[in-house]
């Protein structure tokens, strides 16, 4: 049995008086690919933002052997925790190469960074073609690739992915998910948030279903795909 890389206990996020995440607990084990699915507004993005310390939350977050719920956001990447935010969040005014360089901001091993840059360009050849282009001029799919490539530049152990399929054409979504699959194959632990439940459950081994701030189901992806409630609510059957 693998050990837990990430564990949330009673995680709660409030916006003013509204509880967006109502004390949820979940585990992601080392090497796993787990998804958090649910409708718009269920609290998935808030959960990821809390994990990455971008918004305040209560409850405990354990990462590896330490508690990170009091660690500032900017100290997480050097511990190996990276988030690809919803809506990509590429730096529109920076070039593709500069965006990738930002991903390695916390590192000072120049030669290794150069090697990783080549590795990312190898994985995402489209980015290499557009290396000097300003990121704001890329297509949505290219921006998503760039956001993922940028996160890889930080050599993450745990990658949090927020709605990588959002706003992309189906064929582009397929490509993005191929890339995600290959990242997982390299041993990176992934927590994937998706509205597209089928897509997420196809690539992940386990899943959590979130509904209005609570986790309502937790099971293997195969069982969730077969679950009548999931089929009715999220798979359109």
């Amino acid at each position, binding site marked *: 049995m693998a050990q837990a890389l990430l564990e949330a206990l009673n995680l709660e996020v409030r916006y003013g008086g509204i509880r967006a995440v109502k004390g949820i607990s979940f585990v992601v084990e080392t090497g796993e690919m787990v998804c958090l699915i649910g409708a718009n507004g269920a609290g998935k993005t808030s959960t990821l933002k809390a994990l*990455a310390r*971008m918004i305040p939350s209560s409850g405990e977050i354990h990462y590896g052997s330490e508690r990170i719920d009091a660690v*500032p*956001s*900017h*100290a*997480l*990447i*050097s511990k190996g925790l*990276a*988030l690809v*935010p919803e*809506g990509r*969040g590429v*730096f*529109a*005014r*920076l070039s593709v190469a*500069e965006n990738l*360089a*930002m*991903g390695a*901001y*916390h590192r000072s091993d120049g030669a290794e960074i150069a090697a990783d840059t080549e590795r990312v360009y190898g994985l995402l050849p489209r980015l290499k073609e557009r290396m000097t282009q*300003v990121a*704001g*001029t*890329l*297509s*949505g799919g290219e*921006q998503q690739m760039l956001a993922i490539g*940028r996160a890889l530049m*930080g050599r993450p152990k745990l990658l949090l992915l927020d709605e990588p399929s959002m*706003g992309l054409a189906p064929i582009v979504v397929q490509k993005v998910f191929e890339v995600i699959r290959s990242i997982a194959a390299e041993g990176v632990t992934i927590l994937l948030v998706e509205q597209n439940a089928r897509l997420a459950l196809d690539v992940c081994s386990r899943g959590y279903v979130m509904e209005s701030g609570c986790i309502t189901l937790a099971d293997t992806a195969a069982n969730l795909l077969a679950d009548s409630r999931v089929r009715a609510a999220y798979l359109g059957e």
Partner: protein
Amino acid sequence: MDIFLQQLVNGLTLGSIYALVALGYTMVYGILGLINFAHGEVVMIGALVALAVMKLLAASGLPLPLIFLIALIVAAMACMVLGFSIERIAYRPLRNAPRLAPLITAIGVSIVLQQLAMMIWGRSYHAVPSLLPAESYEVLGAQITQLQLIILLVAALTMTGLILLVNRTRLGRAMRATAENPAIAGLMGVDANRIIAMTFMIGSALGALAGVLVSANYGIAHYNMGFMLGLKAFTAAVLGGIGNLGGAMLGGVLLGVIEALGAGYIGDLTGGVLGSHYQDVFAFFVLIVVLVFRPSGLMGEKVSERA
């Protein structure tokens, strides 16, 4: 023609100083969306600190340009500490407050600094010793002094250095990333507070440099000199497109030239009714025209973000 060239030289000199000050406004605006109205006072304190150092070293027997250089460095360091403190004490606690709060605080800081300077240096005008060579050359009928050449050269070198810093270094990249999206830059490991502090310090050092140069140019320094200079540099930053470094440089130089040419010709244009002491009118006329017709400034276009 002589007047034109002469005023062009004067305008470029003045404009390069405006540009240095405008950069301080625009850098802070770019990263925080805050107009640091206390920046003009930082410029003034730079000038007065440098003057104090010059007086202190006057009897030391050191070569004059070396004294000037030491005064400049001390002033820059003093202003970096000042800029850092202003951000830490006055702006950081208001980082998430409504926009009006830090703006009013900025005006408050400006008043505090001005009064403080008045208490330290008094209300009188101080003569700034001419430590730099003042011989002049005649170029096509216009006089250009060595001091003016030095100002132009120093300003050009400093701005080139700043452009390289912002566009070619790790720190500069982090500054641009933070300006665009501090939360996402944070995910990359950028400590936004550190970057913001650095931005204030760099802007303040440029301001100190401008203060030293402008007081050397006019041979005068006083506790109130930062007000008008700050306002004009702010105008220059708006003219170029606030938040845009190249815009601040262009806006500063343009404003200096417009002002100098305006002052040179206003007498002729109005048949002697208005004299060159109306030169300040031009800066603010430019500000109004820009705000009405091109509020984003000359270079203030944003890269469109595609979803």
